[in-house]
């Protein structure tokens, strides 16, 4: 499947952070509006199409997941582990986007099968750069691993 217009699911309990991510990706050229989940449970519901999320027109299946680590109910590690256990999701692009730069967290995420680990930048320029690079990379790669 060629990726023209990637769909991003941002999983973060911090509304402000999500909103900023959304704005930045928009500025960086993202066409499809970003989808949100506010904690790990919601992310799992979204990905498995539970309840309201069964409506894939309103809640399209994401090309990539931006996953925060520190969240209530289910944290990023648990979501990551769950995703890698689902036959249909085990190759889904999951980018951990966390403020933690601790080696322990980074290693654990890769061990659990993260596609990449990005440390949340401290300023807008950093975030903007990340968004641009990510979109450019998705464009370059062309093929979604999920299909």
């Amino acid at each position, binding site marked *: 499947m060629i990726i023209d217009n990637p769909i991003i699911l941002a999983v973060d309990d*911090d509304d*402000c*952070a999500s*909103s*900023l991510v959304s*704005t*930045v990706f928009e500025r960086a050229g993202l066409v499809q509006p970003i989808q949100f989940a506010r904690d790990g449970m919601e992310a799992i519901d979204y990905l498995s199409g539970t309840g309201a999320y069964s409506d894939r027109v309103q809640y399209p299946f994401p090309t990539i997941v931006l996953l925060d680590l*520190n969240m209530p109910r289910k944290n990023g590690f648990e979501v990551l582990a769950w995703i890698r256990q689902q036959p249909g999701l085990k190759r889904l692009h999951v980018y951990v986007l966390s*403020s*933690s730069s*601790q*080696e322990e967290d980074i290693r654990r995420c890769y061990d659990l099968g993260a596609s990449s680990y990005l440390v*949340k930048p*401290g*300023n*807008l*320029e950093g*975030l903007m750069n990340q968004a641009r690079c990510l979109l450019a990379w998705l464009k370059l790669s062309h093929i979604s691993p999920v299909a």
Partner: protein
Amino acid sequence: MGGTPGGFALPDDLVSALGDYNNYRSGHGVMRAKLLGWTPNGYSRCAGVFSARLNSRNYLPPFMNKGALSVSELRYRRLFESAHDGILLLDPVTRRIIEANPFMENILGYDRAELLGKELFEIGLPQNQTASQAAFQELLANGQIRYENLPLQTKSGQRVEVEFVSNLYPEGTQQIIQCNVRDITVRKQLENSLRDADLKLSRHAAELENLVNVRTAELRQSNQQLERFIYSIAHDLRAPLRSMQGFAQLLVLEHAERLSQPGRDCTKRIMKAAQMMDQLLVDLLEFSLVSKQEMQLAPVALETVVQSALTGCENEIIESEAQIESHSPWPAVVAHATTLRQVLVNLIGNAVKFVAGKPPQVQLRSEERPNGIVRIWVEDNGIGIPMEFHERIFQVFQRLHTTSYAGTGIGLAIVQKGMDRMSGRVGLDSTPGEGSRFWIELPKAPSETERGSPELRVERPEPDHTVNPHKITHTSSEDRALSSRLSTLDSRLHSSV
């Protein structure tokens, strides 16, 4: 004038007895036995005759006349009677007591009459006949027998402890046994109470040690909790701060033309304050990471770490137009590479920061000190630090300058913490106006030939990614300081209870 000893009459004075005795030399053994048996009430006299016999047989010098002998006899008999050791004289043939001094009566409670003529085992010395015979055999064979600590019973059944020494002395063709008996009951009691006190003391010391360990563990735990708390606070505060910064920047970037000048100023101030707060949180995070990071000490190539630290300070160096000179040689030290790099980054950052109106000049060098210690100097030409602040600047949030120099007051605390954790030291020489010379000290790593094994090569770390396979266990100086403070505290508590 009395009769002759052979006629069983006591002489009136010793001299005549001696004279008589000399005439009856061959019969002296009989004479002595009879005299002793005969005159239980004539104690001193009898012993006097006995002693005189000793002298006359072997030791009387040719120049000593009879008067001198009498004086000598009196002198030694005084010693015998006033001695505070029990003294017994025994016949080696019959094994019976032929003389006992007054102190012997004191020790065992038998009076002299009861003692004379008895064998030692009869007065419990030693406690049975078989042992007594064995002891006699030993004495006759070796000439001496000695018991450091002999428990005895007195006549009235009380327990005493004595030191018992028995010697066999020749007296011409005959022999005599002299026993010295020293009452060591009191000494033993003292020794026992001393031992008890020692035991009690060491029990107390162990309890105290244990208490110190428990409290140290508690304190360490609460310290760790505090450090985790600092980390999570700093970490969590950064999240909303990032949003504040981001949106403020968006405001400036995209809506600046719709803001008035004062509105734009406000936004700039928000951004500046947010940036400052972010730096504070970043430094705090760094500080707490130095505290909680696992320290595995290993040989580290200093040159690599210094280079890496200089790269880490690149921005500050370029901004301040600082001139940095790094002087080799750089020996290998025992350290934790990541922490050492952090320490150096903070020292160099500090050195280029506090300079008034001129480009900073920083010298980096190493110095080998006694006892295998390497000192690393970071010298600047900055404003310097007054002596009274030399200790305080290593504490968290201690800043000497308000607005003229940027800083969070955490940098040198990271340096101190990092050196503590690596069991190293930090210090400075500084004179206001003449710059500061900060130093850190670490043990020098053994050279590759000294280490021998190829596995123990000097680590040349990549910046920020350090895995040290060579673990060196150590107690941090912080822990030691803590336990010593605790033990002082405990002893104070103890003495006040």
